[in-house]
């Protein structure tokens, strides 16, 4: 039990919500988590590219597109950050750089935590109920 709690505490997302969507289908939850790590990496890269090209419309679109996925996993801090970038683009443009940098760091932390969680989870014989 302690091991399960330790694993659960590693991941900053609501895994239970994914489990419920897939009716406790472990392979579905794992596939979604893996997919999210790709999405998060892509989100970081796209934000950087748009910022460096000063492509404000694209920056706004990237935030808008990603908010529902981050919300689905209840990554609320990052949702707030995406919303602030989206709004900041309309108001101060260059001022959003700090938020994009923070998003990049937070995204890396989440991806790392999910990967660690998936590795540990595959080493546990009974992956339920998380």
């Amino acid at each position, binding site marked *: 039990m302690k091991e399960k709690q330790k694993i659960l505490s590693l991941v900053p997302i609501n895994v239970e*919500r*994914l489990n*419920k*969507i*897939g*009716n406790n*289908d472990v392979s*579905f939850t794992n*596939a*979604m988590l893996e*997919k*999210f790590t790709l*999405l998060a990496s892509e989100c970081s890269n796209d934000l950087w590219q748009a910022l460096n090209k000063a492509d404000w419309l694209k920056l706004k*679109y990237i935030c*808008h*597109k*990603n*908010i*529902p*996925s981050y*919300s*689905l996993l209840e990554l609320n801090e990052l*949702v707030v950050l995406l919303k602030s970038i989206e709004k900041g683009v309309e108001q101060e443009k260059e001022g959003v750089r700090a938020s994009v940098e923070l998003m990049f760091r937070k995204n890396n932390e989440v991806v790392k935590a999910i990967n660690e969680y998936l590795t540990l989870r595959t080493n546990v014989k009974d992956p339920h109920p998380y």
Partner: protein
Amino acid sequence: MAKKNYIQNILVIDDDEFLLDAIKKKLELDGYRVTISNNVHDAYFKLNIMKPDLILLDIIMPDINGIEFMTLINTEFLLASTPIILMSYLPKKELYNMGYSIGNAHYLAKPFNINHLPAKLNRLTAKA
């Protein structure tokens, strides 16, 4: 197990593939047959070969937005009797300010809890 009501085939169009996979899984477990498209070109192609009973359509997408796409497919595929649920986290008021009207379509505010989606679909389509 197929649904017993009149809605069986659902087409979901959203450029967020993560969300698409989650919606598909949830609705399939609830007994619907679900087809997904991550862009309007693919959705247009699929509408040539299928007749959905319900369309879930994201509003903000690249190339053409969901409201414009809804108008296009209503005309070309004669889908006037097919319920369409537009999804966006833009408030309805903001859509009107942008010059868009959702017409007879239903509206589903994002983000929503996907675990509540089947019940939401039932409620929205029951009002049709």
